[in-house]
């Protein structure tokens, strides 16, 4: 599996072969608060880099989930739809959002590594 990469919209992404797994970062969940609703893209649908690919809602507000890369949705995590609190519990692990068949792996190049993201998150929070 590849190194974990991060987007400015607070998604994380890992790639295995040509399939990417995408979720939202721990930092994002801390900003959102208690997540009580999740909506995921439809399996088989195509999503474009930086386009919306889902919604999370906390007790306070709704937020779009963006995809950091383009591709076809090959799997979605029904467990987080059924129990959205799982997203707060394990955002960068079992609470992944969707899997994509990558359209253009070079889109990964512009994403941040962990160190860069941590710095970005710290700066954007202050």
């Amino acid at each position, binding site marked *: 599996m590849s190194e974990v990469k991060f987007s400015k919209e607070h998604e994380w992404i890992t790639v295995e072969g040509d399939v990417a797994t995408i979720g939202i970062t721990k930092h994002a969940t801390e900003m959102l608060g208690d997540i009580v609703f999740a909506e995921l893209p439809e399996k088989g649908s195509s999503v474009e880099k930086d386009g919306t690919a889902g919604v999370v809602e906390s007790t306070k507000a*709704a937020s779009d989930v963006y995809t950091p890369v383009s591709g076809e949705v090959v799997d979605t995590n029904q467990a987080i739809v059924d129990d959205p609190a799982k997203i707060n519990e394990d955002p960068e692990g079992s609470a992944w959002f969707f899997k994509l068949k990558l359209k253009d792996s070079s889109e990964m190049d512009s994403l941040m590594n962990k160190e860069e993201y941590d710095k970005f998150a710290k700066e954007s929070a202050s």
Partner: protein
Amino acid sequence: MGKKTSLNKLHQDNHAKFVEFAGYEMPIQYSKGIVEEHKFTRSNAGIFDVSHMGQLFIHGGEDLTADLEKIFPLDLKNLKQNCSKYSFLMNDSAGIHDDLIITKIEKGYLIILNAACKDNDFKILSNLLKNKYEMVLDDQRSLIAIQGPKSVEILNNTIEGVEKLNFMTGNWFDYKDQKVFVTRSGYTGEDGFEVSINNDLAEGFTQNLMEKGAQLIGLGARDTLRLEAGLCLYGHELDTEKTPIEANLKWAISKERISNGGFIGSDKIMKEIQEGTSKIRIGIKPKGRLIAREKTKIFDESEKLIGEVTSGTFGPSVNGPIAMGYIDKEFSKVETKVLLEVRGKKHPASVCGLPFYKKSYVKGVN
């Protein structure tokens, strides 16, 4: 950032996340988050800093009572001292400037006003009362609510005697050689109290409650608690475009006043009682987990627009989404099926009764 209450430092020390609300820097939540804070209030005792709300003291005797009856739809002549009523400040067409709690006290009245409305209310009331009475919008006092099943025990350990208060009554009590005014009331659907206390004592008093097991709760949970309890929030369910009858709050208008009128907005109120209103406030239960926020449009099954959501969130105690809104009267019957438009798609929901969450009160042993 805005004005700070006397508990601001205590909020910071307890890792509050702040928001600006009605010009005040207020805690939206603390480190445990809205859901935990909400559940703690329902099972234990939550402390709410509501010092941003207005505490308006108006001093006067029988003249004042008569003058206030020309304003509020209440039977104030027969209101006993230390008893409280929920009411509204209306305009001539019965639109609501504010909703409030008014308590008859020894030398007049204490009115608790919404933070965002209090300055405007003060102006309106000063004009209506023609500056005949001493009116003080007291910012030297904090207002601290303690809500939840353990609040009576915890508060009584701090201010002895409050356990004897009945719901919607209040009294002066001694606390550290000063007078505090305590009412048994609140806005969470739980038993609880609101304590009006001098600013210099507020932090120590709150810490005292925390030492006895109560926890600070933010405005976020205050909103989910009041919505589960089916209670209106000014600026959402209530504003100058809506009347108490449309808001389904006829119960708050004294019966004596409905027949005789003579208060601001009474012509409109009496007309609406006789003829009905075209829209009315209702509860809405979205199907599944869908959350319908404020301004979500409500449609009937033939996709005709019939209303709008005024508040919507996830109710931690009912463990599902809940909403309130206004709907055309003919669709207001409980269990009527409606559609909610969220993110461009229409989702099923049904009209339901209020509140969403009803406390099963345990009677005291005394």
